[in-house]
């Protein structure tokens, strides 16, 4: 048999399997859009995958520029995607995220967290000392209205609820905080420098403002305003900074896997923490809108709310909030 006849016979045999391809294609499409726990479905799909792989290899050789090959490439890719898609159990995925992935990511981020916290504290200290020594520098971090208000002996937050309702204030604050937090994470892409800049700037501003209000006898008032929401808000700032620093470190010291793969792994791993940060900032925003500017809340209540929410954050991040005990209670 000459080569041409052989190829023709092979092609004929290949084309005769078209109904099986169509069946496999329909099965892949069905399983890609619906959930199934049937093991037989998975087994059939695996068989389809092997059949298609075999036929596609043959089609690539026998009819490289044909519609048959195009059809087989497409069907093979569909079955590949259906076989490799993740489980669609949202509930169990969320539980795994909160009980396993989040605590694991936190343990991994811990060294970065210490460093970013140190940088934030040092920046705040620097801001405090600078404004203490050179009070005019406050103009670099605070607006003229804010400065004028403090010089009149009043915090800019006094009477805030007369101007903006709590609901509006909350959403504005939490949206702003989430964006800052996400930027601190994303800017880790600049080899960690962007993250350091955001952390340093925020620390510097906090220290400078505290020094300035302290010079006008309002430090206690500012602490009273901040304590309820600030414990979590500042912790989350350091946390998102830690996530950004991890991303930056992955780019600076990629290891054997290569820079791109190392960046991807770090971004995905620390992204879990970012999700928790965003959720925590929603709570902090609500506290900042409804509790912090409201003069009816006494200092004790504010401290209790602030510390309580912070402990809740620790439980969430350590996985204990949804740990085995919590599950048994459900």
């Amino acid at each position, binding site marked *: 048999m000459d080569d041409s006849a052989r190829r023709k016979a092979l092609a004929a045999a290949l084309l005769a399997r078209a109904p099986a391809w*169509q069946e496999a*294609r329909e099965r892949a499409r069905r399983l890609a859009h619906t959930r199934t726990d049937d093991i037989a479905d998975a087994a059939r799909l695996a068989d389809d995958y092997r059949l298609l792989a*075999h036929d596609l290899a043959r089609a690539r050789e026998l009819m490289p520029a044909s519609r*048959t090959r*195009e*059809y087989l490439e497409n069907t093979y890719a569909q079955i590949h995607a259906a076989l490799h*898609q993740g489980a669609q159990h949202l509930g169990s995925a969320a539980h795994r995220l909160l009980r396993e992935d989040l605590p694991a990511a936190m343990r991994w981020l811990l060294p970065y967290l210490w460093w970013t916290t140190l940088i934030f504290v040092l920046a705040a200290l620097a801001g405090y000392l600078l404004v203490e020594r050179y009070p005019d520098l406050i103009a670099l971090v605070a607006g003229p209205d804010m400065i004028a208000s403090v010089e009149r002996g009043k915090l800019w937050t006094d009477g805030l609820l007369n101007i903006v309702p709590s609901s509006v204030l909350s959403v504005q604050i939490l949206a702003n905080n989430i964006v800052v937090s996400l930027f601190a994470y994303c800017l880790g892409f600049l080899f960690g420098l962007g993250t350091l800049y955001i952390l340093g700037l925020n620390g510097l501003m906090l220290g400078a403002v505290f020094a300035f209000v302290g010079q006008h006898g309002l430090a206690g008032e500012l602490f009273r305003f901040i304590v309820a929401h600030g414990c979590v808000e500042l912790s989350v700032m350091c946390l998102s900074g830690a996530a950004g620093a991890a991303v930056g470190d992955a780019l600076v010291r990629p290891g054997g896997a290569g820079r791109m793969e190392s960046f991807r792994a770090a971004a995905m791993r620390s992204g879990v923490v970012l999700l928790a940060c965003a959720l925590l900032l929603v709570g902090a925003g609500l506290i900042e809108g409804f509790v912090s500017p409201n003069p009816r809340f006494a200092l004790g209540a504010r401290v209790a709310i602030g510390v309580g929410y912070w402990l809740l954050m620790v439980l969430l991040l350590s996985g204990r909030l949804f740990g085995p005990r919590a599950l048994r209670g459900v």
Partner: protein
Amino acid sequence: MSGEFAPELSVESVTGIDVSLPVAGPGARSYAFVIDWHIRLILALTWYVVGAIIYNGRLALNAPLNNSGRWFGLVLLPAMAIYFLYHPLVELAMRGRTPGKRRAGIRVVTRQGAPPSAGALLVRNVFRLIDCLPGFYGVGLGVMMFSDQSLRVGDMAAGTVLVYEREVRDEPPPQAAAQRLGALDADGAEIAADLLERWPSLEPQARKRLARQLLQRYLGAQAELTDGDELQWRARLERLARPGS
């Protein structure tokens, strides 16, 4: 839209036969983005306009002067949420697709060719903050131009790639051809099957011309090419494709 000339994402498979997916370039991605941008803008504006008219009780779009919580919560906030959360939410719901991507014939997959996880979709959308700097997706487009697989920073972070969805007809093309291989090779059988399938929808002149070309190509000098009516041309074509002919 097709990825005929696109670079390919080749995914190793346990079968030993790579899965090959054509990678979408900056053009297709921008096209999809522009469509999605218009959709989210229209949706957000529609919400705002309808909400403002209902809130004001008349044909007026202006915001109240008193910082109303109801205005903020029912009109402004949802409109902003539609605009800013469109991409992550729609990609999550449509498993890596959006209406714009669907129109451009592309979808998001992992580097393993599978649908991306929720985490990967969220991370790739968070990094839009960087990709859209300093405006008009400057960073994203710049990085894409220098990346082999046209990746923006978000794709690098999430391990995702945008690939073309191959547009093929649902019925397997060679099904009819399988019985018609006859004197033809596999490609010829496909063309003959295609031609016979499309026969009723073709112009009479086109039917004759295409049948003549096919007969000439596969039978050469032996082909019977004398003019005849359409039924004759069809019969000749069917003879050509008949097994054992």
